């Protein structure tokens, strides 16, 4: 595994850049633990100060230092994306594996549910759920809800990989050698499926973070927990753009975009690792 990472880092520019970006982002998120301010407190520093040596990213109209706000926002946003991705990966993995393995009626039922989830319009549903759950719709509940809605595509993907694996030679060999099905799945097939899970992990994080930003900007989330979208929400509340406090938008946007690019690069380099053809092309084995 370490050798794979080392090779990826060495031969794959995307992976290297993605890693560096994510290192910076994680560094900033980690800085939140050293913040001199509580994230929800306001009117602590001068209002509307542009970026300067004292306030690197400036301050906002709520008297908060944007740099320290951002550290919390990135931490929460990343944690949010991570939880959504983690839970939805588990769902899609389990459902994809079961569906691909059992086949028949189980497969058909699971895939019908799956297709329903693909088809239901997500955004209206989230807005509706927000209104049903209202202040119970905390950051964590939202993560659970999004995880519950975000597994369908990838479950289908994993299922199709499973189906193709099931028909391969080595599965039969394992069957004949008397291995039990669960053991075959976990020992023989999981290694093929896991890279897909990792790659979709990154994409799923991107998806959930993007959606969280959107919902937050529209005020459909818990605005008390600082997130990237929450920062933009507050900037809007204070008409920051027309009053010239552009840095209130700029830095959250910059860092969320960097996060997206970083995760995206990791996802595509992971894809290359999965797809041996392009990997070989790079490594140059004739």
């Amino acid at each position, binding site marked *: 595994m370490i050798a794979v990472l080392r090779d990826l880092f060495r031969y794959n520019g995307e992976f290297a850049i993605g890693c560096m970006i994510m290192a910076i982002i994680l560094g900033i998120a980690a800085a939140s633990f050293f913040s001199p301010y509580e994230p929800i407190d306001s009117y602590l520093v001068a209002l509307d100060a542009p970026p300067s040596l004292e306030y690197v990213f400036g301050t906002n109209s709520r008297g908060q230092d944007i740099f320290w706000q951002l550290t919390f926002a990135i931490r929460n946003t990343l944690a949010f994306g991570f939880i959504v991705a983690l839970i939805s990966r588990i769902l899609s993995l389990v459902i994809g594996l079961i569906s691909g393995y059992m086949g028949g009626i189980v497969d058909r039922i699971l895939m019908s549910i799956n*297709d329903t989830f693909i088809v239901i319009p997500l955004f209206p549903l989230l807005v509706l759920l927000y209104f049903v759950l209202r202040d119970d719709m905390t950051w964590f509940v939202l993560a659970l809800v999004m995880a519950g809605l975000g597994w369908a595509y990838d479950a289908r993907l994993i299922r199709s990989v499973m189906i193709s694996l099931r028909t391969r030679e080595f599965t039969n060999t394992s069957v004949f050698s008397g291995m039990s099905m669960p053991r075959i799945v976990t020992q023989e097939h999981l290694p093929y499926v896991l890279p897909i899970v990792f790659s979709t992990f990154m994409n799923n994080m991107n998806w959930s973070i993007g959606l969280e930003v959107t919902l937050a*900007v*529209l005020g459909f989330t818990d605005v008390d927990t600082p997130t990237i979208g929450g920062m933009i929400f507050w900037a809007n509340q204070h008409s920051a753009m027309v009053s010239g406090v552009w840095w209130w938008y700029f830095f959250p946007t910059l860092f969320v975009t960097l996060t997206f*690019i970083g995760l995206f690069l990791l996802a595509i380099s992971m894809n290359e690792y999965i797809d041996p053809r392009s990997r070989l092309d790079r490594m140059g084995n004739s």
Partner: protein
Amino acid sequence: MRSYAIYVAKRVLQFALVVFVGISITFLITHLTPIDPVEHAVAQVSTFGFSSPESIELLRQSLKELYGVGDNLWEEYLIFWRRLAMLDFGPSLSAFPTPVSELIGRAIPWTIGLLTVSTILSWFIGNILGGLAGYYSRNRILRILGMIMMGLHPVPYYIVAFVLLIVFTFLLPILPSSGGYEMNLATGWTPQFAGSALLHSILPSLSLILVGVGSWFMGMRALVSNIVTDDYVTYAALAGVPDKKLVTSYVMRNAFLPQITGLAMSIGAIFNGAVITEQVFGYPGIGRLLVEAVHAADYSLVLGITSIAIIAVSAAVFIIDIIYPLIDPRVQVTQ
């Protein structure tokens, strides 16, 4: 032909099932809302004007009767399906007694107009540029374009829209900031109206296209760079098949086919409305209507919009499932 018929029948069944489950879930969720449309009406009456506590109680009673809320949920559910069968969603609660279908009918042409054009445009632009960038992977201009797209496509849509709005209505005020057309114009197929509607659609569609092109571009480029290494492309290149033919008939054609499914889904998703676009640009479409309906606890309207959205997306998937075997020779109708 027989296998195709079975295939179609299965898809029809699936379509019906998805629509049924989807709409039922939305029905349940909307009716679980703690927001009471009667209270909203009462609040609207009493917030500013004169109101005595006794009369408010009386008002509440008569509104409950009028709106027909508070019945048995199961009965409401049956009534809902009976009405839906006749494409009737009942009266809107926040614009009582105007029918939901009338409100939707007013908003939907704007959304369809805006989203069809921008979806199709971004599909073509993104796929063609992405295809070229995947094929001519060493072309400098296309590489730069690829980097721009990679930087652009993850920017949250809201930011793109907002920046466009600020640039073209505030810093350089040359485009209208909100609405679907100029004030006081008569609606109709006049050149004036069409010009005004087009002018007002520039910013919303530009924002949608910028973001849409990015994601199609990235997807297509990845697809094409895989296809380029496929044997039939190598073989045709070895055979000296001219480059133009190779790009179009060999690479692009194969890469476009999966993208057609994506296009169909996006077109179906049009009926979700572009909530944020319509919000940012004050566009009179169905996405805004939905948010307003949610705010006003108008569940007949919410249900009306989401039902249409669910039907549209599943119909798009259904149609593409049925047509796909006919357009892509590789797909065999076995399952």
